[in-house]
C-alpha cells in the first residue's frame, strides 16, 4: 500500500466522509422522482391487471435489519393493492421476527389508505419449512393457517373468502431479504403455476434477474431504488423517493473513493521505483 493510502486510508476517514455526506443530504431534504423501469413496471402491471376484489398474497420475508429498504416498498405495494380494491393476505416464511414487523407495516398502511382488517386485508403467521410450507399451502391453506395472526378463524375473515389453497391467489408477491423466493419459485411457480412478483434488497437483486427472462417472475423491485420507482408509478412519493438524493450522493461518493484509491495506489507505485 502506498504511503499516501496509508496516511489517508484509515477506515475512519472513509467512514467520516460517508457519514458527513449522509447527514448533510438528509438535512437538506429534496425528493427526486425516479421513473419506473420496465423491470419494476412488471410488478405494477401485474397488480394493475387484477380484477377488483381479487386476493393477493404477500410473503413478508424480512426482519428489522432490512426495514430501510423493504418497508417503503411494501407500503407502496399495499397502497396500490387497496387502491385497486384487492384483498391482501400477508404471511411469512422467514422467521418469527418477520410477522410483528409486517403487522406494523400493514396496520400503518391500512390507516393511511382506509383499509379495514379482515375485510381488505388479513394477517396470517410465520410458517417454518420454506419449500415444505409452500407445498403444504398449495394443497390446503387451512392445514397450515387454520386461523389468522390474531387468532380469528378463517371462516370469520371475509378477506379469506374463496381461498382454500395457494392457487386461489391471483398474484403472489414475495418481499424478501432471504432466499425464501426460491421456495416460492420451486413450490409456487413450478408446482402450482402461480404468478409471482419479487421485491428484495439491492444486494440480492442481481441474483434474480435471470428469472425475468424466463418469466418466472413478472417483475423485480430491487432495494430502495426499486421502491422509489414503485412510488413513482403509483404516484405516492414516500420514504423511498425521499431517500433517493442521499442514495445518489452515496453512490457518487463511493465512485470518488474508488477513483481516489486508484490514484493514490498508482502514485505510490510510481514513487517506489524512484526511491529505489
Amino acid at each position, binding site marked *: 500500500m502506498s504511503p499516501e493510502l496509508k496516511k489517508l486510508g484509515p477506515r475512519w476517514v472513509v467512514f467520516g466522509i460517508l457519514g458527513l455526506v449522509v447527514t448533510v443530504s438528509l438535512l437538506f431534504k429534496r425528493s427526486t422522482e425516479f421513473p419506473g423501469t420496465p423491470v419494476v413496471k412488471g410488478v405494477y402491471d401485474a397488480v394493475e391487471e387484477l380484477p377488483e376484489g381479487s386476493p393477493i398474497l404477500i410473503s413478508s420475508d424480512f426482519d428489522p435489519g432490512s426495514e430501510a429498504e423493504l418497508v417503503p416498498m411494501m407500503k407502496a405495494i399495499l397502497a396500490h393493492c387497496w387502491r385497486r380494491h384487492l384483498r391482501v393476505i400477508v404471511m411469512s416464511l422467514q422467521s418469527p421476527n418477520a410477522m410483528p414487523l409486517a403487522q406494523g407495516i400493514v396496520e400503518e398502511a391500512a390507516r393511511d389508505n382506509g383499509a379495514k382488517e379482515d375485510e381488505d386485508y388479513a394477517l396470517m403467521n410465520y410458517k417454518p419449512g420454506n419449500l415444505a410450507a409452500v407445498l403444504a399451502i398449495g394443497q390446503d391453506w387451512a392445514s397450515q393457517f387454520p386461523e389468522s395472526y*390474531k387468532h380469528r378463524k378463517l371462516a370469520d375473515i371475509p378477506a379469506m373468502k374463496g381461498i382454500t389453497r395457494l392457487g386461489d391467489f391471483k398474484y403472489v408477491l414475495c418481499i424478501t431479504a432471504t432466499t425464501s423466493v426460491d421456495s416460492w419459485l420451486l413450490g409456487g411457480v413450478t*408446482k402450482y403455476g402461480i404468478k409471482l412478483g419479487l421485491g428484495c434488497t439491492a444486494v440480492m437483486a442481481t441474483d434474480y434477474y435471470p428469472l425475468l427472462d424466463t418469466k418466472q417472475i413478472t417483475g423485480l423491485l430491487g432495494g430502495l431504488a426499486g421502491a422509489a420507482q414503485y412510488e413513482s408509478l403509483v404516484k405516492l412519493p414516500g420514504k423511498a423517493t425521499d431517500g433517493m438524493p442521499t442514495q445518489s450522493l452515496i453512490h457518487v461518493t463511493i465512485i470518488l473513493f474508488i477513483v481516489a484509491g486508484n490514484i493514490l495506489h498508482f502514485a505510490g507505485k510510481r514513487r517506489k521505483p524512484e526511491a529505489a
Partner: protein
Amino acid sequence: MLHLKRTVPLAIAFLSGILLLIQYFVPHPWSAKFLQYTSDWQVTLAYAALLLGVGSLVQSHVTKARRKAPGWGFSAVALAAFGITVAMGMWWSVHTAWQSRTDASIVTTGSGEGSPLSWVYNSLLFPMGGAMFSILGFFIASAAFRAFRVKSPEATLLLLSAIVVMLGQVPLGAHLPGIPQLSAWLLSVPTTAAKRAIGFGVALGSIATALRVIFGIERAYLGGE
C-alpha cells in the same frame, strides 16, 4: 444396533426420496394426498428443528461461557438476553391466560400489543437490526476504496461495470446519457448469463447429491466416521 443406526435411516431416506420423486410426476389424487401429508410432516419437523437449533445455540454459548473462552462475555450476554426474552414471553402467557378466565375476548399469547415481548421487539431488536444493516454501507465504501484496483484488463472491466451499475441504480444516472441503458444491459445480459451458468452448475450438483443420498452413497448425514 447397527440396523437402527445405519440400515433404518438409509431405508427411510431411500423410500422418502423415491416416493417424493415419483409423486412429482403423478397427477393422481392419491399422489396429491401423499404430498399433503409429507408437506405437513416436513413443517412439523421444521418446528422441531427450530427447537434443536435453540438447544444447540444455548449449549454452545454455555460451553463457551463456562470455559471462559475468548469472547465469553458475548456468550454470557446472549444467554442472558435469551433467558430474559423467554421469561417475558412465558410470564405474559400466564398473565393473559389468567385474564382470559374473566374476559373471553382476551387470547392467551406470549406476544401481542402491550406485552413485554412487543417492547423488546420495538425498542431493542428493531433499532439494533437497523443499525447493523446500516453499517454495511460504510464497510462497502471502505472496501471499495482499499480494494477496487485497476490492476488488469479484467479488473478494469469489472470496475467500470460496477460504476455504471451504481450510477444506473440512482436517479442521477437517469440524467446521464446512455447510463440507464448500459446499466440495464449489464444486468440483463452478462449478469444473467453468468448467473444462469452458476444456476445450472448448482442444480446439477444438487441432483447428484440428492441421488447420492437416496441411493445411500452419501452417508455423512448419519454422523460418525
